[in-house]
């Protein structure tokens, strides 16, 4: 059963070394929770970006939270490259597992369906594939002359993290058309959600709301954190703060600048 907790208790569910799936970068990113994880000095996470990392991933990398990063790309979007990510890869201070967007979606769908692998088209001849020793290129196993195809082993996250505009009193969480959040939660052992507000109603009793709702069945714990995605944006709630993100991108170009950012915006 889902429980309602405060932010620090919620962050406490993330153990060192856990395989953590993070909401897609363009919205619904639980930034307050990410800052709490940094304050808690969580270490050696295997961070899975679904499928692209941004400000959250860069901050976690810079703060030493991430041991292994799995992502199709990391970038601050219009604010440019992700400086701590690039420093960590070029400085070889973190293990990088390169992948491609649909491979992450597909490997999570395999866990969602409880199967050990799923096939995916494309990928053959990419150096991503040749460097992933867990991916396997096989001849069409149906034996129907379909040619070679890549099999991707299931990815089963220990924890999925995201932020949402609202949950109801039963722990059902609104995900709207961000359905990758459902796939992530289905695939994960634990799902931790921060929300702008907890509403005293039942989303599942309303067919219109139900269509965009992740049932509490998949939600381990929820913390109410207003502005929990800031400085990133949240659909229909607030826009991302591009000035803040650009300032971060500039500061984080150096280790000292990044530490100053952490001191001011995360640790204090």
């Amino acid at each position, binding site marked *: *059963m*889902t*429980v*309602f907790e405060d932010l620090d208790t919620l962050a406490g569910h993330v153990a060192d070394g856990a395989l953590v799936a993070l909401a897609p970068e363009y919205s619904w990113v639980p930034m307050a929770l990410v800052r709490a994880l940094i304050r808690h000095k969580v270490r050696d996470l295997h961070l899975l970006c679904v499928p692209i990392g941004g400000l959250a991933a860069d901050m976690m990398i810079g703060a030493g939270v991430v041991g292994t990063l799995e992502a199709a790309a990391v970038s601050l979007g219009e604010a440019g490259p992700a400086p701590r990510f690039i420093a960590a890869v070029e400085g070889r201070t973190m293990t990088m597992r390169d992948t491609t967007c649909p491979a992450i979606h597909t490997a999570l769908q395999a*866990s*969602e*369906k*409880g*199967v*050990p692998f799923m096939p995916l088209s494309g990928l053959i001849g990419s150096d991503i594939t040749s460097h992933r020793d867990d991916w396997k290129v096989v001849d069409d196993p149906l034996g129907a002359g379909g040619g070679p195809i890549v099999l991707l082993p299931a990815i089963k996250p220990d924890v999925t993290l995201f932020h949402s505009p609202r*949950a*109801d*009193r*039963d*722990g*059902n969480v609104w995900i709207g058309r961000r359905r990758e959040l*459902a796939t992530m939660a*289905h*695939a994960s052992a634990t799902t931790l959600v921060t929300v702008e507000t*907890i509403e*005293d109603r039942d989303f*599942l009793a309303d067919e219109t709301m*139900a*269509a*965009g*709702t*992740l*049932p*509490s*069945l*998949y*939600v381990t714990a*929820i913390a109410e954190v207003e502005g929990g995605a800031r400085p990133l944006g949240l659909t229909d709630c607030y826009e991302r703060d591009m000035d803040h993100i650009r300032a971060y991108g500039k500061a984080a170009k150096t280790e000292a600048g990044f530490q100053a950012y952490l001191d001011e915006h995360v640790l204090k």
Partner: protein
Amino acid sequence: MTQNYAPEEFLINALAAELDSVDHVAVGALSPVPGSAALLAQALSDGEQEAGQEARTGAALSGPGQGHKMRVSIIHGDANNPFTDGGRELFDCAGQGRIGAFFLGGAQIDGEANINLLGVGPYPNLDKRFNGSFGSAYVYFVIPKIILFAPDHSRRVLVDKVDFISAPGTSAPDVHRPGGPKVLMTGKCVMDFDADRKRFTLKSVHPGVTVEEVLDNTGFDFDVPEDVPETPAPDAERLQLIRTTVGPEIAKTYPGFAQQVLGFQGG
């Protein structure tokens, strides 16, 4: 013997006993008795929870899922249906290991717990066609506790060997199979299933039923222990719970059943 309960109420009570300590029970289509049993087990579990815990604070928001200790999901139900990801979600959810118990019937069930929901005769040239296998060929493998429910205890249903295996009772060791049959509930008795021995053992007989009657009406061999207890019947308190707590809830999905069998009116 005079009873103050309907046969369905007896079975609801007996099935609920098999759901003790299950976290999440899912109930398929056309299953008013199993659905009621799951809701009864949930009510009993809630009662234990309340008895065992401190007075709650911050009631409304203290714990989602309405604070139920046991989750009951009624597929396609107009209530207690948590699914929002389409028809596949029940099966995906089961494959994820999130469903602890489920009920399956069988037009035929044999002594190795193979079940047949499809037809009688040499497939595909069936003499008698039934509805079909539904999801049994999958859920029988992945849900840990499958309860076989066969109210019609007869040699027509409980056969030596099914004509068609909709879903096999056991699998070779190399087959991924976290789930399978654990219990058979009939109109006459309860049997436990041992997958290693591929064999049922009589666990209890319902009030008024003898072991001989069970033997006479069962088409497969099974083990009979020295002492065979009687399956507990619902006491007054339990009947009250069935009629006042379970009735209104199951009426949301099976209004006719709730009214005719449990005497629940309105809603």
